[in-house]
């Protein structure tokens, strides 16, 4: 057990993790107590696993090596990096590096390096579950290292522990549960965003000159914090609870909405105590979801009127996209019905079906089932039947198919050579996109889809 003051100082920085801290400090312990050979820290994204563990190890003064496994592409890179990092930390003057290409070699090397040292050493494998190309035995063998080297403790940090992750169950687990509403708000309240007063610059400088008392300033800070807390709670209830539960996402959502929310206060139109009227004023904000949808371009900038000229596909490429959509979402047995020029057959069949067996078997709408493959001949046949006028069957059409494929609007659905007649393709766009394209060429795609 580490001294209590350590824990409380860390606890100040990382609130709401007291239980986990105590558990960890018991496991890490001091030099006089042995630590387990390995243990697992698990918890979902942004629950403080990495930060708390790192802080604790640093404060405790133990030797430790921190490896971020998601930076390594192969297990070999991982083992070599472990060896290199430990060496530079323990024996910086060492020049004779062994090649630790496997876990075995690493174990042997670490046994040499750590064997006669009296101090404990911790090897933290952060995000080991994100290691790429990991063989199934990788984690188990890394755990065994702790058994073979008495001074070594291996700490695995994973998001979700698999029951048979290490092929043994007796390891201690430390769980970092997701923060609750109250905890999230408490953490966010540690550093609330300020209200950017426009009135200081905007209005005359009288208000500045009327030197605000310190009491006043304190009072304002208190009120602002109260607004922040209430605001956090509102965002949690309206948006965060459903869609942004992890702390970082929740903070993002709060921060993105904060500035527009307090704008009336910043302008001086509303007072600090009028939270509920602000809420009514901004009620639309909590219905919109654009602040919690992840985009590369920040939501606030995409909000402005969309004036950008869109890049257009070539005219017949649009028809090809429509044809591919139809080929993917209509069954081929309906083709004659839908695309044949004489349309009498359609009514008859439909009438016949409606009468007899309705509701016998409920079908899922085909649009929800995902696209099915089609041979290129079918695509071409549909294409020529939906194009309003005759076009010569030139090589241009095929080159457009190739272009659409490289844009991944069409994708190849079978591993065969694309020149093979039996190679299958499918469309890779959603209904909204296909409909948008169909509308831009005034083609009623709905008429041709069999629901």
């Amino acid at each position, binding site marked *: 057990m580490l001294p209590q003051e350590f824990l409380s100082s860390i606890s100040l920085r990382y609130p709401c993790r007291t239980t986990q801290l105590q558990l960890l400090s018991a496991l890490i312990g001091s030099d006089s107590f042995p630590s387990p050979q390995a243990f697992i820290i698990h918890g979902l994204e942004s629950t403080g696993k990495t930060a708390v563990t790192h802080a604790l190890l640093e404060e405790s003064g133990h030797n430790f090596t921190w490896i971020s496994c998601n930076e390594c*592409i192969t297990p070999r890179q991982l083992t070599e990096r472990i060896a290199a990092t430990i060496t530079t930390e323990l024996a910086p003057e060492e020049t004779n590096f062994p090649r630790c290409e496997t876990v075995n070699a690493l174990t042997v090397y670490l046994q040499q390096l750590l064997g006669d040292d009296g101090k404990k050493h911790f090897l933290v494998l952060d995000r080991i579950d994100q290691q790429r190309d990991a063989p199934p035995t990788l984690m188990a063998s890394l755990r065994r290292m702790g058994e073979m080297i008495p001074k070594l403790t291996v700490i695995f940090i994973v998001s979700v522990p698999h029951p048979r992750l290490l092929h043994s169950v007796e390891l201690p687990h430390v769980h970092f549960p997701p923060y609750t509403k109250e905890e999230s708000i408490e953490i966010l309240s540690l550093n609330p965003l300020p209200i950017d007063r426009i009135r200081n610059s905007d209005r005359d400088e009288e208000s500045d000159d009327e030197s605000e008392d310190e009491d006043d300033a304190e009072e304002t800070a208190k009120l602002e914090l109260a607004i922040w807390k209430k605001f956090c709670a509102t965002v949690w209830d309206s948006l965060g609870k459903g869609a942004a539960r992890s702390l970082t996402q929740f903070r993002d959502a709060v921060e993105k909405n904060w500035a527009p929310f307090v704008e009336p206060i910043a302008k001086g139109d509303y007072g600090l105590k009028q939270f509920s009227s602000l809420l009514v004023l901004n009620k639309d904000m909590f219905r919109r979801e654009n602040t919690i949808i992840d985009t590369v371009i920040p939501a606030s900038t995409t909000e402005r009127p969309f004036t*950008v000229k869109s890049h257009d596909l070539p005219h017949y490429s649009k028809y090809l996209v429509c044809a591919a959509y139809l080929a993917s979402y209509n069954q081929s047995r309906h083709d004659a019905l839908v695309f044949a020029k004489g349309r009498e057959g359609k009514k008859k069949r439909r009438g016949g079906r409606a009468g007899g067996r309705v509701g016998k078997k409920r079908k899922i709408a085909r649009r929800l089932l995902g696209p099915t493959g089609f041979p290129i001949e079918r695509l071409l046949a549909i294409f020529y039947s939906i194009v309003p006028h005759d076009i010569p069957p030139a090589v241009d059409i095929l080159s457009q198919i190739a*272009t659409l494929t490289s844009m991944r609007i069409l994708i190849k659905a079978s591993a065969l050579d694309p020149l093979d007649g039996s190679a299958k393709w499918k469309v890779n766009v959603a209904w909204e996109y296909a409909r948008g394209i169909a509308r831009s060429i005034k083609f009623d795609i709905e008429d041709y889809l069999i629901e």
Partner: protein
Amino acid sequence: MSHTSAKEPDYHHREHQTCYLFNPERNDTPSTRPTKKRRTGSTKAKPSTAPKSTERCLFQPLLNGDEPEQAVRLRWMTYHRLWEAQELRTTAILESFNEKTLDDISTFVAAAEPAKYSGKLPTGLVLAGPNIASHGPLFRQFQKRLNEVDGAGPVVILTSKEASNLKGTLKKLIRDATEQSGDLDEDDEEVIVGRKGAKLLNYDLQILANWCAIHQGKKVIVAVQDTEAFDSGILADLVSLFGAYQDRIPFVLLLGIATSLEIFHEKLPKAVIRLMEGEKFDVERAEEYLAQVFNDAVLGKDCLLRLGPTLCNFLVDRQHDHTQSIQTFVAGLKYMYMTHFYANPLSIVLASVGENGLPLRQVLSDIHYKAVRQLPSFKQTIESCIAEERTKIVREMLNNDSALAREMEKASQRCLLYGVEVSRALGVFDIARSCSSSGSRITRSELYSRVLAGELTTQSPLVRELLMLVKRSNSESATKLLKTLLQSNYLLDSTYEDVLEELLDEIQDLSTEAGGKKKKNLTSEFDVVDNALRTTAVSRRIQISEHKSGLSTKDSEYSKIIQKVHDVFEQMFSRAFRPTKDLFLNEIFFYDYLSPHQEVFSPKQRSAVEDGLARPSEYLNCECCYLDDDEKENVLKSTNPVTSIAYQLYLESGVLINAFDLYQAFHTILEGGEEESDEEEGGGGQIDEKTAQALYYRTVAELRYMGFVKPTRKRVDHLQKFAWKGL
């Protein structure tokens, strides 16, 4: 098809041999080498060496081989001269076009600090449009600009073809990034790659991190050229790796997007998208590229050879319907120059025009005069001269070569002037249209081809409507229109300029007079019609009466002026909007042959194969396949090539073809024909079972090779049909 060998100089019989002894003949090689297309590219950089590269003339003598060698050379040289000038201008336009995007991106990269994006990867999304061919040059421009001009750091371009797995991509990324900045000394290399014993693996981003530690202030710019085609798993892995190393390596991502932002966002997992933040950049659209290049290459005042109406339509339509790629349009233009000078002996007339043109009489020889007299436009000119009873000139042109040359000189000047006038009149047309803001905008390229084809004259509704709008405009918009026109130098010649300037002054004087200090807006008396658009009857009536009573004397004076403006416009349009076919020598100055372009740029590969199989007589031209006029369609003859017989049977069958049935039919046809010939020839071999089978196996193998059939697993003894005719 059979005459290809005679036509193509680089045809070699060995090309169709499966194997042969390679025996390089030194004397042989230069003449069989195909035209080097890149030659022109290298010459444009240093025009002084131009004669060198174009020394060897690759054109054939035309006019049944009677063309003097000098003329062949002249065509060759003129082609190079004209096309190089055109190409220079085109590339300049294309390069200047992305200037704004380049500027935006370079400021974005310069300002990209992780702190600005709250620890996320600074990402620029480049919306580059569906023209994939242009992405390569665009990204190379980025590379050049960011690395060489701005010095922001190494730019690594990743394409989907090179990125089949994560390891390989990282290797390439690290190699490109560390090598771009120039040579490293050994010490540096040791620092970067690691000490001897613990050399870092070559895909370890730690190498790049070490490199960045040495080169402070440099950013590593990773540009993904075709984000859509990239394997999304690899892209996601890459981005998350970059995110993990973000604190050590200052990455900046540039992602090229061909489709749309929505599709891009759907492609990547949310966790990866959360790692990126940035801006989007728009690249100019293909239509704007086209408009600019078209204005220069077809409407420009410097070009001698222009597109004819049919070909212009073909190229522009193809651009809109199929490719959206400016590169193919430019290729089409180049091909126009190539075929014109390659195949038209009279194209040397173009050598005589322009600033340093040779005198026409020196250029032409007897045989050329003969060829000129064969031109349709020559005949037409003669006929129209006869109609006007100018017989003297007709006789001279027919008999006297020097007189003809004189006429040709005049005619070529007229053709050039005509081209300039058309383009200027279209400019005037455009400005007038933009000032009056009438609804649908037809592009200039379309108008151009209509004018040349004679479909757009002053009588056509489009022009009349525009002239009406000019007439109806009030003093304010008329002033604006005239001012922009006078600034634009689109006016056909200076006399119009003077007239319009005078009229503009008059209008301005009048409106100042009428309104005193505050300029009053004068309305034209022709403006009444416009008000008929009023919806309710009462308001319309009020409007009309108001209008009539409201017309002051100034207004009627103004109306007279605007009538004059209208007349000037009409005069200009009627002068310029004439069809090309009335001009003598239009064949030389306006290239309008569709079929070479069609055959080269959009060949009908499928119907060629299908026709060849269905009607072998068209290609083979032999007696045995010959069809009489009354049996044109689908008559199976035993004398046809066997594959063609099998193909016709194949066309008649369903999706699954029973192999035995097909054989039976095949055999019957082979025999059926044989019997007839037996009777005629009296004897001869009945086709025996084994030969028939052998032939049958061969044809089926051939059909399979061409992708028409495949064995199917559904039924063992059946073939599956894969291709239908006419698609």
